[in-house]
């Protein structure tokens, strides 16, 4: 494999367990990674974007065959210094497959990035996307997951830290098109300095999606007086046999908590650091088994 020049490297102990192909979709170059049916990958596939200072335009298609399972980690290091990045991704999870997809974005804080990620999750399949975003000067991220088969499960966790003059905007939609779908969107972020952080979420249950349960939760810690935070938690429900809800919270660190630390001799800065780690810690634990990714994010928090 790898007969062509890739803008990323792939790490996995057994590269025979999946297929990477270069293809064209609507005359656009794209890369397709396929996990064959019934293949259970125990080790994560590591997709590491190569260092570059050139503009980047990339499309990636991920397909999991029936009954397969995999964990894929997509890593944008701060060596990715492209002035502009256009990234498109489509995930297709066939029936009974199970995908855990982790995005670590620590790209240079000078890049302007637009990304569009979509997933199509078939009957009894599961797709959980985690996005940890710390990079980019400006980001316009759109992520849409569709539960297109019965009992499909779609979950998304977006964790972002926006500092200095970063402007990060996340738009995430979960669409339930078939019966008995389930899933949650979690959007959690920290805004500080002069940053902007926007969470736009939507749970959309179609008339054909009876019996589905969809939730959306947005939480933002707003740490500096010059930040701008936006939260738009939406619901679009077209039938009655559903369980759906959303919540959004925007707040600063709790004075009482800071006082509690202070009373025990912990300085305010350290107390803040501990509280922030606690705020994002729960989300970080979700990827604890992937040590490299876990350590990268832990350091950034």
């Amino acid at each position, binding site marked *: 494999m790898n007969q062509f020049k890739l803008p990323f490297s792939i790490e996995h102990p057994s590269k025979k367990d999946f297929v990477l192909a270069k293809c064209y979709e609507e005359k656009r170059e794209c890369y397709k990674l396929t996990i064959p049916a019934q293949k259970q990958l125990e080790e994560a596939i590591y997709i590491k974007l190569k260092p570059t200072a050139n503009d980047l335009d990339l499309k990636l298609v991920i397909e999991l065959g029936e009954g397969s399972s995999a964990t894929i980690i997509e890593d944008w290091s701060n060596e990715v210094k492209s002035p502009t990045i256009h990234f498109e991704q489509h995930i297709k999870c066939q029936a009974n497959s199970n995908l855990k997809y982790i995005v670590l974005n620590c790209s240079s804080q000078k890049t302007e990035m637009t990304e569009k990620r979509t997933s199509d999750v078939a009957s009894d399949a599961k797709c959980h996307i985690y996005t940890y975003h710390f990079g980019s000067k400006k980001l316009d991220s759109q992520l849409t997951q569709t539960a297109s088969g019965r009992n499909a499960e779609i979950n998304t966790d977006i964790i972002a830290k926006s500092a200095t003059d970063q402007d990060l905007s996340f738009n995430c939609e979960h669409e339930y098109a078939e019966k008995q779908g389930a899933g949650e969107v979690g959007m959690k972020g920290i805004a500080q300095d002069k940053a902007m952080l926007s969470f736009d979420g939507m749970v959309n249950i179609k*008339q054909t999606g009876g019996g589905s349960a969809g939730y959306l939760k947005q939480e933002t810690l*707003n740490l500096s007086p010059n*930040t701008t935070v936006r939260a*738009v*938690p939406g619901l679009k429900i077209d039938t009655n046999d*559903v369980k759906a809800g959303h919540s959004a919270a925007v707040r600063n660190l709790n004075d009482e908590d800071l006082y509690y630390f202070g009373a025990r001799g912990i300085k305010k800065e350290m107390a803040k650091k501990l509280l922030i780690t606690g705020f994002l810690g729960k989300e970080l634990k979700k990827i604890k088994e992937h040590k490299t990714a876990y350590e990268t994010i832990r350091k950034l928090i």
Partner: protein
Amino acid sequence: MADPHVKSEVKEEKSEGIFAGLNRDTFDHSDPSEYMEKFKKGISPQLVAHISKDKDEPEWMLHQRMKAYEYFTRIPLPDWGPSLEKLDFDEICFFAKAADKKGGYDSWDKVPAYIKNTFDRLGIPEAEKQVLAGVGAQYESEVIYHSIEKELEEQGVLFLDMDVAVEKHPELVQKYFMKCVPANDHKFAALHGAVWSGGTFLYVPKGVKVEKPLQAYFRMNAMNMGQFEHTLIIIDDGAEAHYIEGCSAPKYGSNALHAGCVEVFVGKGAKFRYSSVENWSKDTYNLNTKRAIIEEGGIMEWVGGNMGSGVTMLYPCSILKGRNSRADHLGIAFANAGQTQDTGAKIFHLGENTSSRIVMKSISKGGGKSIYRGDLRIVKTAKNAISQVECDALILDPISVSDTYPNIKVDNNSATVNHEARVGRLNEEDIFYLTSRGIPVAQAEAMIVNGFINPIVRELPLEYAVEMNRLIELEMENL
């Protein structure tokens, strides 16, 4: 000796309340409308000038109307929300008078009998006797009855037909009129500014507390009517009042339009509650604008029920200008077959230590669509602002729809904002529990729905809570 049976009937009637006997016929009843022959449909600068002349308005008001008309011609229809495609301005009658008595009659006995009968059916004169401090009743474009308790008049409270207020208190009106909702705010504010007619002017002087509510009732009677009443309320520093607005129209199967405007100014330390029970006919476009500016320590409460109209676009707005000011928005929307209830709230936190609370409940049934649309903004100056938003939606069948579109923007790191929304259907266990005790399914469902909306309804005076419950019952029964 009196017949004990007669006594008990009277007692029962009283305990049921003034509005308990309301039925669909009460609202759908229409009076003859020969007077409409004198009025044309459509809007033009000539019509705007004619309205002003008919009311013998001062020059500034005519100028303001003409400017608003210009905005109306330039501002496009909103490119969001429910479709307004079928709203044909050429088919709407923008100004019509059923009786010619500026300021309205001061006694129900003087009101033309057929109009009085309509308001009798709606229970307004009876409510005036029992629970209200004053009443304004508008029929088509003009107020036909207005009254206020003498004691309040003596304390300096002004409760007038808006047309009369322009004539008798021009300085006060000019100072506040369309300053809270400027005519260039949106298409329908502009339309309103051009053709407004009737409505209420309420001024409560400093420190005066009006204990009983004041009510205005707006009734459209003729086919293809448009109503554009203007409500201007000034609650001076430390004053308190409660105003109730009701409205209805018969159904003709042809479009009607309501684009009223409510402006409220709440002074320092003042408290004001605006309650409305909206029940326009289901061929009405209800595109109303309601907004309040609240000064330091002031409290503004919006309590609303939207049951009628084919299309509603209504988002009461509070501008928390003064420090320590507060706004509560409590609302119910019921979207039945063919209805789109696009309602919500807008709150702008400008002052320090301001707080707001939004509680919205919606019910969708028979293919109806209910939408919560919110806009909450906390600007840099609003230090320590707090806001809490709760939206609950019940969808009663598989073909109905509920959408929630809240927008929260925070420019201040000392703010605390919480938003929660839930959507679901009636709990089957609750229905089972009630039916196992011999209650029919339909009644059980109605009881659960009444319980669902109770946190809002209980904020209304008892008589109006009964009216709201009755309207919900009528919707549940499809009557």
